[in-house]
């Protein structure tokens, strides 16, 4: 999976705080997920339009830890979220032209 241009799926409702995040997937019967604070912060930056690596760099700056470490961690988290359909990959931001 390409790790660029990830964004929250439309069927996911998130409540993000300094203490972590709650994600609700409203498909089917609905499923709850919890994100620990670093992941919740990364999710928040994604919702602001940051790329996954940009968001990871901001998390790294917040905690004062190496960006490479956080990028690796967030790539792993991104795969977990995408596998569950909580994040979607935006392959292109350009709309297709139709005559």
């Amino acid at each position, binding site marked *: 999976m390409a790790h660029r241009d990830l964004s929250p799926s439309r069927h996911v409702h998130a*409540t993000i705080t300094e203490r972590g995040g709650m994600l*609700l997937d409203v498909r089917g019967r609905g*499923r*709850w*997920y919890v994100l620990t604070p670093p992941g919740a912060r990364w999710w928040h930056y994604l919702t602001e339009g940051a790329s996954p690596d940009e968001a990871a760099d901001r998390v790294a700056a917040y905690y004062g830890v190496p960006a490479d470490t956080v990028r690796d961690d967030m790539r792993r988290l991104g795969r977990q979220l995408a596998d569950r359909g909580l994040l979607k990959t935006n392959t292109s931001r350009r709309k297709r032209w139709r005559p």
Partner: protein
Amino acid sequence: REDYAAPQLVELGAVPAVTLGRYAEDSDQGR
């Protein structure tokens, strides 16, 4: 500042139907 730790995603399971409808109505991401 709190220490950094690798992020964790924990699945809590299914949601009761009544809660689901109520929460979806009430939940501005990141407010």
